């Protein structure tokens, strides 16, 4: 089984623009970190419009989709406009085994963190040696 998960270059290559009713507009930054018993995916998503978040894991692909709400401003009222709004979608492939039923997601301070636990057998276990004085 391949031990490679997303490297930074792969993050960009793997992001899929799948067809759908909403067009992906921009790509929010993502961090993927591997801990002893889980992978953590953090996505910067400040100001999500409630009810628009969708996180799903299918086969080996994690897809995160949401809509960032825009302030109500008349079109000619903006002096500077850099804040991203609209829908986005990012996907990443996990070649490592994931305990899919144990996946959780939390949204705090504008960051969505998805925790993908590794299956139990994948974590290291110390094996006791019987019957020796070792």
């Amino acid at each position: 089984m391949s031990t490679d998960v997303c490297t930074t270059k792969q993050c960009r290559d793997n992001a899929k623009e799948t067809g759908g009713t909403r067009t992906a507009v921009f790509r929010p930054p993502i961090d993927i970190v591997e801990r002893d018993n889980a992978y953590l995916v953090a996505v910067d998503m400040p100001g999500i419009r409630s009810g628009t978040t969708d996180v799903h894991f299918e086969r080996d692909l994690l897809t995160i989709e949401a809509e960032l709400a825009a302030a109500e401003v008349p079109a000619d009222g903006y002096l500077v406009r850099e804040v991203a709004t609209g829908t986005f979608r990012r996907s990443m492939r996990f070649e490592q085994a994931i305990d899919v039923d144990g996946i959780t997601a939390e949204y705090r301070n504008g960051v969505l963190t998805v925790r993908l636990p590794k299956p139990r057998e994948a974590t290291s276990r110390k094996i006791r040696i019987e019957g020796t004085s070792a």
Partner: protein
Amino acid sequence: MLALRFNGPRHADRFGSDLGLLVHDFFGGLPDFWEAAPFARTAYPALSVWQDETSVFVEASVPGLKPENLELTVVDNELILKGRRESERKSGDVAHCHEIRVGEFTRVIALPVEVDTDRISATLRDGVLEVTLPKAESAKPHKIEVTVGR
């Protein structure tokens, strides 16, 4: 036209926005920022500024920050936003993808009109900072009645 003033101390980086404005951005903690996003040529944090008759509004995207990580100052009709984003990494973590920028940041916005500094309010929710700066009385539009001259 709103001006975002450029001031070039060391570590300053100059980025043009779509409107061709000069932006004053000043990143401390260089290694973290460059390591995280070496090719990202965008100012941080993203800002939107707009106004209506009574106030100027500033919105900043600051995910991962709490109020204690932010510092907002108004001086000489400029709004200065400073902050620091901490890394969530723990020792032993293996990073597979590292796009989120951490470290210190500063942005300076020259306000288009004079504001009433005593009544400025700011809220932070879900990583979005919203600042409302009521315009000073003298800066609001005043209708002037025209009388017929003789």
